[in-house]
């Protein structure tokens, strides 16, 4: 009797995914991930900006303004990656019915929207001296603007339901349908004739000077760590909100 109990307990613990799908179990894990994220974001940003501004040379064609690349490209990449992550957690939530998956998706959305804004803003300021215009309705820029509106639509829909479960499911549909836009953004420079330049970085071959590329990739990891930390912080806040009736949350605020 005691043995079978032990065995079933082992089996249950072995399924780590299900164990951490519980908000109460994931709360402390999210806290640790958040701390690591802040640390990595700050450290990598210092290194990346140092290389980008004090080691990388002036660009032969563009002069100094190219240094916007160290935040423009990471922000644009994160805006796309976060949307895909949101679609993934939304799909997981719809299929498995796990509450934490929907919360993960909600926690990512505001940071993703900020990344889209930063990509558009820095792109505009970079475009003005290099193309002669802040904005043009070309495929890359337009599809990135649509990405921003998808984030806003997702958040608005999630917040518009009094019943949180309905809000979770409705917004998850926007996340899934909108995910089609991400490959459109990525391949837009190949599919259409755009004012935006083609990819400088492709798996296997890149056309950038290696020191510039190094700085940009380090900044990308810094952005990545920042986004993870911000999302984990938001996730923990959401867990507190949604589980505020639970005993363990009450213990937390004592």
């Amino acid at each position, binding site marked *: 009797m005691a043995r079978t109990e032990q065995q079933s307990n082992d089996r249950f613990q072995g399924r780590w995914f299900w164990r951490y799908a519980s908000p109460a179990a994931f709360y402390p894990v999210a806290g640790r991930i958040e701390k690591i994220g802040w640390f990595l974001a700050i450290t990598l940003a210092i290194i990346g900006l140092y290389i980008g*501004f*004090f*080691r990388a*040379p*002036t660009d032969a064609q563009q*002069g*100094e*303004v190219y*240094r*916007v690349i160290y*935040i*423009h490209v990471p*922000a644009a990449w994160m805006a796309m990656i976060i949307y895909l992550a949101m679609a993934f957690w939304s799909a997981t939530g719809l299929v498995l019915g796990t509450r934490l998956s929907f919360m993960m998706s909600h926690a990512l959305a*505001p*940071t993703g929207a*900020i990344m889209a*804004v*930063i990509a558009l*803003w*820095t792109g505009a*300021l*970079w475009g*003005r*001296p290099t193309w002669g215009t802040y904005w043009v309705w070309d495929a890359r820029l337009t599809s990135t603007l649509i990405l921003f509106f998808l984030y806003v639509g997702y958040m608005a829909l999630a917040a518009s339901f009094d019943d949180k479960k309905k809000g979770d499911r409705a917004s998850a549909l926007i996340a899934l349908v909108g995910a089609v836009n991400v490959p459109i953004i990525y391949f837009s420079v190949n599919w259409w004739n755009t004012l935006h330049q083609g990819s400088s970085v492709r798996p296997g071959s890149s056309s950038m000077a290696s020191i510039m590329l190094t700085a940009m990739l380090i900044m990308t990891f810094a952005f990545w760590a*920042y986004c993870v930390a*911000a999302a984990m*912080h*938001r996730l*923990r*806040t*959401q867990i*507190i*909100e949604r589980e*505020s*009736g639970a005993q363990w*949350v*009450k213990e*937390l*605020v004592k």
Partner: protein
Amino acid sequence: MIWESWSAFWAMGGRGFFVWGSYGALLIAILAELIVLRGARKKALESVDEFPR
């Protein structure tokens, strides 16, 4: 040091407005997000306090 002086650094070859306008916007966005995150956490914890035990 690739810059002749700090003023050359801040001038960014005459493109300072565009470079610092980009980095400044990022800084403002990050600070705003951090403030909102902290405010939301505080509000959530307060609402737990009010919850009947």
